[in-house]
């Protein structure tokens, strides 16, 4: 029996404290090497990542919509969204479909592929322990979700994937890698290896990090880029900075370094806007000085309803007019 050696495993600390070590992962990576969005957008698998609350879902849907309107068959994927029907592929337009990927369903399908649709497979999938492992066990859970995407890529021209936010999204790739390294011998090992090869190959997969023009999200985006480059050294991510305040002409003389304001609170709306734009300029100038490529999308007045449609439509228009896709 082959004993997997623990040297293959990510050290426990990097599993437990990935947040804390993220920034130190690959100090040699020059972020100026990251590609512009236009270079990654045509990849077959496009993973949209970023921290929580930056608008990944709307941006990824807008990208999917734009690409599908060019006549390509697109599958937009999200994971275990409690507000969407689970597991079924649903047509949104003749060329655009959505999938709310569900681990339980994906596990069943995977088992069906591997052991055939039989009474035995039924017993296996219906087994309480197996259900527990597929739904609750980090590792198997992620492997199964990513496996579903990997499998669906045969059926579409493009897959645009709305990843869970930063840490959890990274853990999906990390767990898959740990499984591939640890559990040798079975077909799961082979599939995990093949998946990682696809995800690391810039001819097949691309990564987009969505951020906001504020210091913390920008800093975390750079950390995320470093971490992704550790996982997939040949496949660097592109950046989208979302929710940039609409530019106001004639402000040039009024912009100040945000650190010079005596009070971080603004008095009225005009002052807030002036300061907000100054802040964004200041933050993005630091990126330009470091030659970090990024695309930007404007802040769309948030709708009052829960429907994302108006935002998605508006973002899709921006993506088109700015020539990003």
């Amino acid at each position, binding site marked *: 029996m082959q004993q997997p050696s623990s040297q293959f495993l990510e050290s426990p600390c990097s599993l437990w404290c990935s947040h804390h070590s993220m920034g130190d992962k690959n100090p040699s990576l020059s972020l100026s090497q990251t590609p512009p969005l236009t270079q990654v957008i045509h990849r077959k698998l496009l993973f949209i990542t970023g921290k*929580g609350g930056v608008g990944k879902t709307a941006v990824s849907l807008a990208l999917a919509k734009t690409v599908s309107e060019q006549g390509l068959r697109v599958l937009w994927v999200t994971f275990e969204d409690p507000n969407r029907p689970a597991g079924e592929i649903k047509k949104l337009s003749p060329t655009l479909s959505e999938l709310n990927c569900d681990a339980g369903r994906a596990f069943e399908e995977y088992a069906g592929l591997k052991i055939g649709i039989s009474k035995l497979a039924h017993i296996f999938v219906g087994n309480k322990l197996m259900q*527990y492992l597929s739904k609750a066990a980090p590792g198997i859970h992620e492997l199964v979700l990513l496996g579903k995407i990997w499998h669906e890529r045969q059926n579409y021209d493009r897959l645009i994937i709305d990843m869970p*936010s930063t840490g959890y999204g990274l853990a999906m790739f990390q767990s898959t890698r740990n499984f591939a390294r*640890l559990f040798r011998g079975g077909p799961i090992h082979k599939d995990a290896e093949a998946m990682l090869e696809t995800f690391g190959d810039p001819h097949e997969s691309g990564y987009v990090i969505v951020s906001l023009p504020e210091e913390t999200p920008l800093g975390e985006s750079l950390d995320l880029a470093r971490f992704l480059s550790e996982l997939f050294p040949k496949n660097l991510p592109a950046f989208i900075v979302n929710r940039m305040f609409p530019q106001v002409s004639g402000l040039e003389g009024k912009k100040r370094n945000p650190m010079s304001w005596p009070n971080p609170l603004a008095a009225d709306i005009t002052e807030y806007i002036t*300061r907000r734009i100054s802040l964004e300029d200041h933050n993005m100038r630091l990126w330009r000085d470091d030659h970090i490529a990024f695309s930007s999308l404007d802040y769309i007045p948030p709708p009052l309803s829960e429907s994302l449609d108006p935002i998605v439509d508006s973002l899709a228009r921006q993506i088109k007019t700015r020539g990003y896709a």
Partner: protein
Amino acid sequence: MIDDLLKSRKILITCGTGGVGKTTLSAALAFRAAMLGKKAVVVTIDPAKRLAGALGLSHLGDEPTDLTQHVQEALSEHHPELGSLQGQVWAIMPDTRKTFEAFLHEIAPNPATAERIMRNPIFQIFTNEFSGTNEYMALERLNALVQENRFDIIILDTPPSRNTLAFLKAPQLLARLFEERLIRWLVLPTNKLVSAGMRKALGILEKLTGAGFMTHLFDFAAGLFEVQVAFTANLRGITATLKSTDVGFIMVTTPSPDTLQEGLRFIEQVKEHQFHFDGVALNRGLTYLNASPSNPDRNFDAAFEVVRAIQKREKLVLEGLEKSKIQICAKVPELARDVHSVEDLFHVAMAFNS
């Protein structure tokens, strides 16, 4: 409102999804408690750099750090009008790995068992930070702080999560690992009590994963089997602490169309656990801005439209919460710049309920 909570509770736990400004708000709560004369500590498991950076420190450690002097100096230099701190403000960044090791040693019958569990690769994968482990370790560290009885009030900033409810559900999530039935299936796979179906299923799993995986899986279950009783007792103790009237839960959120539903779900969960709900803290609001004198500058039109839409949404959220009788414990304004310093945190602390 927030001051009543800071005076009456001994522990305030802030819950919320990533990106709502939980860490900043938690630190500001500790500042405010110190201004009220309390000896306050903020416990944060968020990415280290942020809070430490805002406080001007290179790092925070697993033991509480006294920030009082540092904060007092910044206060006297920039805002002498605010007077001086009557109390103290401390901060701590628990080392979850260290806590976890100590925890395993505590619940294991002997050190060898603890080491064996920690070395098991499946256990390492299972206990990565999205399985509830970090949350549970935060509670462990909290428990230790409570035992020490050094502070008047502890503000616990919960780990970032996908979902506001994650923290409340974390102990149960981790408990599932220790579920007796699950362990029995795996510890006794050849036992006659195990059904033929289970044996078949395990056989298929072995074919799919290879023999190495199964060896580790059984070893993993055997390890859990040994600590299960102690873990369950520990879980009961922690749950009892959280149910006490010394502890209040605050939901931190930014105003959005989902806020009301999020709040209702949160309250339902808190009630189900028999914990105490202390209100919604609405962060990053813009309704505090005075309306600008009529806007003659057409260049501002698009930006104005964005601000007004954000304000309108916030008002709807406030009305919705009020209508559903959901308590709002704090309204915190959106700052026009990133929180950078002790002074900025002060502005947040001073602006509660503005």
